[in-house]
């Protein structure tokens, strides 16, 4: 591990923060939620539900010693 890898991790984190903004901005939505937006959310929910526990099976979800 060196300073470059730490900087890379921090940069990845910052990029991640940026990528989260659109997700969180939806909470600030004002006005009317269109039928299309509702359908998109319903599809996202259904996809998540249909994965059952599979959505938590990746290695990133395992607690490492």
């Amino acid at each position, binding site marked *: *591990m060196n300073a470059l890898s730490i900087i*890379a991790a921090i940069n*990845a984190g910052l990029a991640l*923060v940026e990528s989260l903004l659109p997700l969180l901005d939806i*909470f600030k939505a004002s006005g009317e939620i269109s039928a299309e937006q*509702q359908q998109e959310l319903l599809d996202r*929910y259904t996809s*998540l539900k249909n994965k059952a526990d599979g959505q938590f099976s990746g290695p990133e979800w395992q607690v490492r010693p």
Partner: protein
Amino acid sequence: MAMAKLHLLRVLPLVLLCSCATQLAPGPYNGDKVLYNADLAITTAYDVCHRFVKWEYDNQVALAQFPEVKKAADKVRVNAPGLINSAISLREVYVSTGSPESRDSLLTIVALLRQLTTEAVKNLAEHTDL
């Protein structure tokens, strides 16, 4: 990047507190804001938590000298699956029964999900100041 982080921290209280003062057009939720907000909280909680634990996993070598990052990610790993799966179950009960009790249970777990989401984002934002 710094602006993005500031913006993120500004949005956080909204994530936690918002009861989403929006109106639903005629559509698949049939005007049911409780259900819409529950689906929004469930899917957002999963997306945010997944991105956080994946970031920690992908950068574990570089982050090894910052044990608090792994601790925060492990907290998400332990708590998020149960909470999200429970929320999905309670959401389905609410849809099938529509009872006041199931509505209250769903609202309670949605509040917990918002808290989980907020903590994950807060941890991420804090630890990008390493």
